[in-house]
């Protein structure tokens, strides 16, 4: 029993010693600086004391004590208080140059000073701690805010995982690689990180998954002798995946570091729960699969449908050039019809492919700088054959600002408006296309003198643009196409709207009424970071 007690005492003694040495390590510089401050005050006082007889000298020493307390905390402040008491006694209280005090009044004064200094330093120290904590909280809040903002911008797992990795690496202070796990991976692991993960670490993580034993493991890579720590990100669930932290050559730190990482990860997991991370991850996984599926679908549909179409179109072309057919009006009109219908089918396929790009989560534009003039010209060029029986009048303002958009999407949207105008107006009439700037927006308009639409008409698609201004209710779809043209399902306009919205713009369709034409306009914002017109880069 006594032996046990002695052992405990020894351990405690060791702890005290460790505590003091730790305190000293953390405070060595502030304590030395506080004492230096006291010495400086003493020198000043001695200089003044030569000429003037000073009373209440200890009071002056409150200054270094408060400075020490507010700057470095309570320990340096106490050191400053004790040093001040000793120094003022030694230099200023008779008998001089001794720690003895003759006058009991002076002794009481000094004792009072110590009490006041202790209380003051305690209060100032506490205030400082609180300020520190609130700073730290502010920092953490900022970090968390930046992290959640970055999460909001992550769409697929390949974007999400590196974001989490960066956050963890910053928190832990060591490079971290996140390993994706999940039932759909069938026991396999996936790594999205640009960082290299040694094979040994991957094997160990796989073994961990296979054995269902999720206790922390360490692996030393034989080649570089780097130490890797592997564990599930959260102690409670494997949903977040596993992490491998590169501890470099920090073997000595071993247990301490592991403890430190465990503490941080517990905190991180709580944060993840707050951000509903498990859901974010599973949604991102779903989207990744959706994207993959879409890519395959688009690829297959493109190939399987367009290759035979290419043959039909090329055949029609070659046939159309043969003299036997060229000289026979009936036959050549048949060939022309084959050609036109094949082209129309191609347009419809393009629309379907575009619609698959437009998912529930929207279109993801690839932004680039573009001159609106180029968009207008290119859209007209692309729909050349559809506009063949109309006059096209183009009016483009000079010095339009550049816009930052996905060129292909906007061209496609404008092309759709042109096609609609051609479809819903009489042959030989004029379609007016214009591009102009209007209070920090660029407006691309297509105006026809066609059938227009009635305000009361209802749109079959709730997500379609609502016509504004003169016509309320949005009734684009009641328009009857001109004879010979075919009514569409309205898919084209739905896609055009999705493409414009994805670029931060709006689509606006107005009509004066039935039989009085339609104006469709695309409003696109001018980016705020557009460089000054004709800057130094162009002038030389």
């Amino acid at each position, binding site marked *: 029993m006594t032996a046990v007690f002695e052992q405990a005492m020894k351990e405690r003694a060791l702890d005290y010693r460790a505590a003091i040495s730790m305190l000293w390590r953390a405070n060595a510089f502030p304590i030395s600086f506080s004492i230096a401050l006291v010495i400086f005050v003493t020198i000043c006082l001695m200089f003044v004391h030569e000429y003037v007889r000073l009373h209440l000298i200890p009071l002056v020493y409150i200054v270094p004590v408060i400075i020490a307390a507010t700057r470095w905390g309570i320990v340096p402040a106490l050191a400053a208080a004790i040093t001040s008491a000793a120094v003022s006694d030694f230099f200023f209280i008779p008998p001089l140059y001794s720690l003895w005090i003759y006058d009991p009044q002076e002794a009481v004064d000094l004792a009072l000073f110590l009490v006041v200094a202790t209380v003051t330093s305690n209060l100032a120290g506490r205030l400082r701690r609180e300020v520190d904590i609130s700073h730290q909280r502010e920092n953490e809040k900022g970090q968390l805010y930046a992290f959640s903002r970055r999460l909001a911008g992550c769409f697929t797992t390949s974007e999400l995982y590196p974001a989490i990795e960066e956050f963890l690496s910053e928190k832990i202070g060591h490079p971290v690689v996140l390993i994706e796990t999940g039932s759909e991976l069938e026991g396999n692991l996936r790594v999205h990180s640009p960082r290299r993960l040694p094979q040994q670490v991957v094997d160990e993580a796989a073994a961990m998954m296979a054995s269902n034993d999720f206790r922390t493991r360490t692996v030393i890579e034989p080649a570089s002798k780097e130490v890797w720590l592997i564990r599930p990100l959260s102690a409670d669930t494997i949903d977040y995946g596993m992490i491998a932290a590169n501890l470099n050559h920090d073997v000595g730190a071993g247990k301490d570091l592991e403890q430190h990482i465990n503490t941080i990860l517990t905190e991180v997991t709580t944060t993840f729960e707050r951000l509903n991370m498990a859901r974010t991850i599973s949604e991102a996984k779903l989207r990744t699969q959706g994207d993959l599926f879409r890519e395959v679908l*688009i*690829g297959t549909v*493109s*190939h399987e449908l*367009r*290759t*035979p*179409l*290419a*043959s*039909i*179109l*090329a*055949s029609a*072309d*070659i046939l159309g*050039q043969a003299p036997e057919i060229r000289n026979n009006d009936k036959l050549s009109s048949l060939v*022309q019809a084959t*050609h036109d219908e*094949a*082209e129309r089918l*191609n347009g419809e396929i393009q629309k379907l492919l575009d619609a698959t790009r437009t998912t529930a989560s929207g279109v993801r534009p*690839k932004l*680039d*700088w*573009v*001159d609106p*003039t*180029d968009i207008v*010209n*290119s859209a*007209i*060029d692309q729909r*050349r*054959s559809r*506009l*063949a*029986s109309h*006059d*096209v*009048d*183009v009016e*483009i303002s*000079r010095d339009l600002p*550049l816009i930052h958009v996905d*060129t*292909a999407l906007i*061209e496609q949207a404008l092309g759709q408006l042109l096609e609609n105008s051609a479809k819903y107006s009489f042959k030989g009439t004029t379609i007016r296309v214009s591009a102009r700037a209007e209070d920090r927006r660029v407006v691309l308009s297509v105006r026809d003198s066609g059938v227009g639409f009635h305000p009361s008409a209802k749109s079959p698609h709730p997500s379609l643009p609502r016509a504004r201004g003169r016509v309320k209710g949005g009734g684009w779809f009641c328009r009857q196409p001109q004879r010979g043209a075919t009514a569409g399902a309205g898919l084209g306009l739905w896609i055009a709207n999705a493409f414009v919205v994805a670029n931060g713009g709006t689509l606006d369709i107005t009509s004066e009424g039935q039989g009085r034409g339609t104006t469709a306009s695309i409003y696109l914002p001018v980016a705020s*970071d*557009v*460089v000054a*017109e*004709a*800057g130094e*880069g*162009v*002038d*030389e």
Partner: protein
Amino acid sequence: MSEHGPTVLIIDDEPTLRRLLTAGFEHAKFLVRQAETAAEGLESAVLDLPDLIILDLGLPDQDGADVLDQIRSWSNVPVIVLSVRSNEHEKVYLFKRGADDYVVKPFGMSELLARSEAALRRYFKSATQSSVVQAGPISIDLATRRVSNGEVRIQLTRKEYKLLQVLATHAGNVVTHEHLQKEIWREASDKHAQYLRMLVRRVRSKIEQEPTRPDILVTESGVGYRLQTARPVSSTPRRHRSRTAVMERS
């Protein structure tokens, strides 16, 4: 070859399309070689030394882009790529790897023929190495750095000339945005992307008859710019009347 005109090698795995292209090219007096796979195509490219290659991207045994790489490692014969997707990224990527032109399926035969002829013209012209590049009424003399519209000299700033110079050295071919930025400003960035668009607008205002409907310095949407040395021919019927220059051109 002189009897038949140029030789074209068609590398495509679709028999129907191959047959049609053969018919189309033979009709236009080309001598046609066919290959069904990448391996056959590469073999024929070496043995038959075609003047032009039509390359389908979707081949069964190898990626079309890799075939392009292998051809480019030893030859600068014009290559026109056939693809099913009009994807800007794919276009930029293929132009960077040395494709001369890019045609999206489905295409009109006459369009493909027109592009083939343009590619051949560029190929044979570059072999003669004339220092003057003619684009419509505009002539660019790369030796004397003189740009003129007919007899009238056009005053250009240093950067404006540099733009025309780069486009003229690749006359008729697409030059990507990135390549132009690097040639003119030595770096490509978001800021330089904007400068380039403005520079193009300025040059157009000096060389184009109708700067908002350019037909000399033309845009290859999402990819780059091209100095148009020959008028493009298109397969679409031309009943089209219009008041605009761009429409008349097309």
